[in-house]
């Protein structure tokens, strides 16, 4: 007695081949038809390095540290990102801003060292949500491959966005404004 609970079991057909099957040619023609059909199908492959698929709009990739419109670092080294990080990937050291560094850092406290270990990071985006100063953001790129583990520990230099010419001009404008107000007093 055979059980056929799922109704999907199929008995193996062990009948001897018929004459048409023994000829092989009809089956071969059938096979050729199938492969011929595949010749004209659209290929699902994307030519990766030349063509890249767009990420989803909510993609969370590599972090950047933001600057304000005058090119000053926004981060105040409050440590909320490190606190929120479930993978404990972020470490930082804070320092106090000297009077000569006013143009470099936005607030009186800044991050002297800021490291994210990209091997630990799970790209959850909680640091971005935790940041009260809008200083850290997750971008649409991912960490490139590296030959050693040290290369995956991203320092401040790797994370900070570059100063644009717009920021420079803003900075100059602001400085001249300040000079002007100082002169009037």
């Amino acid at each position, binding site marked *: 007695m055979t059980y056929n609970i799922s109704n999907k079991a199929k008995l193996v057909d062990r009948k001897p081949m018929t004459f048409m099957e*023994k000829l*092989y040619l009809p089956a*071969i023609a059938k096979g*050729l038809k199938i*492969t011929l059909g*595949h*010749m004209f199908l659209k290929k699902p*492959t994307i030519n990766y390095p030349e063509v890249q698929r767009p990420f989803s709009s909510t993609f969370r990739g590599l972090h950047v540290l933001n600057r304000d419109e005058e090119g000053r670092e926004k981060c105040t080294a409050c440590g909320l990102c490190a606190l929120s990080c479930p993978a404990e990937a972020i470490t930082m050291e804070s320092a106090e801003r000297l009077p000569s560094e006013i143009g470099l850092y936005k607030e009186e406290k800044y991050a002297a060292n800021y490291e994210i270990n990209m091997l630990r990071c799970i790209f959850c985006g909680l640091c971005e949500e935790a940041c009260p100063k809008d200083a850290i953001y997750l971008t649409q790129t991912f960490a490139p491959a590296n030959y050693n583990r040290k290369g995956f520990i991203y320092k401040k230099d790797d994370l900070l966005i570059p100063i644009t010419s717009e920021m420079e001009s803003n900075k100059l404008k602001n400085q001249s404004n300040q000079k002007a107000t100082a002169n009037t007093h």
Partner: protein
Amino acid sequence: MILLAISLSLILEKVVLISVILGASLGIAMYSTWAERKVAAIMQDRRGPNRAGPFGLFQPLADGVKLFMKEEIIPTVSSKFLFVLGPSIAMLMACMTSAVIPWAPDLVKADGSIFSFQVADINIGVLFIFGVVSLGVYGVMIGGWASNNKFSLLSGLRAASQAISYELAMGISLIALVMLTGSLSMREIVEQQHGFWADGWFTWNFFKQPLAFIIFIVCSFAELNRAPFDLAECESELIGGYHTEYSSMKLGFYLFSEYINMFITSIILSSLFFGGYNYPGMDTVAAHVSPLLFSIIGILVLLAKAVGFILFFMFIRWTIPRFRYDQLMNLGWKSLIPLALVNMLITGAVILYFFNDK
């Protein structure tokens, strides 16, 4: 008294012709490897090699360089002389077959002498091809034996028995053709298929002997050791078969000879059954163009037919799974040989009773 008058210019002509043919068949074999990968990719909805050069056209060069750079390993337990002899025979025999193939109609030069686009017009051309092709199996056999590896040895055995079984059917199917043409010379067989239509029927042998063609092409798959009859080198059972122990350019020779054989077989198929360099309306073409251009068109027509067959070989390879060994032998001995015999008998009877002018 001069028994054998050989002019220097004739020797020169032949040397040039041989080098051109060898170079061309090597080049076409090279690009067959590229085409094979491309065809496979297209059938499997992939893209295939496209990194080296435009459309991956430099891929064969890269493959060749890779094979040359690889370490050359000769197993210590192998018999070294035979080990080197194996791929050499395979390559040599693959290159030799092209000698009797007529590539284009004879070219009458300005001074009235004739330039033949055939290295040697021997009157047993078909027999020569059979002899050389069956010698080619020795390359596989010797390679499999000399490797001192049980898989290679099994593969050599398989190749030999397969060749013997299928050569029979192949030869018998050709006997029917030879009865029809009354000649073993390749040149004459091709010349008889002149044009496309004459005396109320096609001139090409395919339309006169379709069954012989089917038997011949199935057997040539087996002779070429190509899928679905590539039992001598099946990766899944024999880990590469006779070339398991080979590396570097010796492996390259084996793989390459297979592609040269495929090209030559395609040429032979188109010469024997599809009219060789003949094409419909060639007489009007001959009247309008210069003799040299006419010959070149002939070569191109032959090559186009051969490329069609090569693509067909690849098409089959990537469609049909490998036969089991008993299926292979059953097909050869129980189907193809009786079919070929019946075909021969019917052809003989028809010629005797309907086309017997005496």
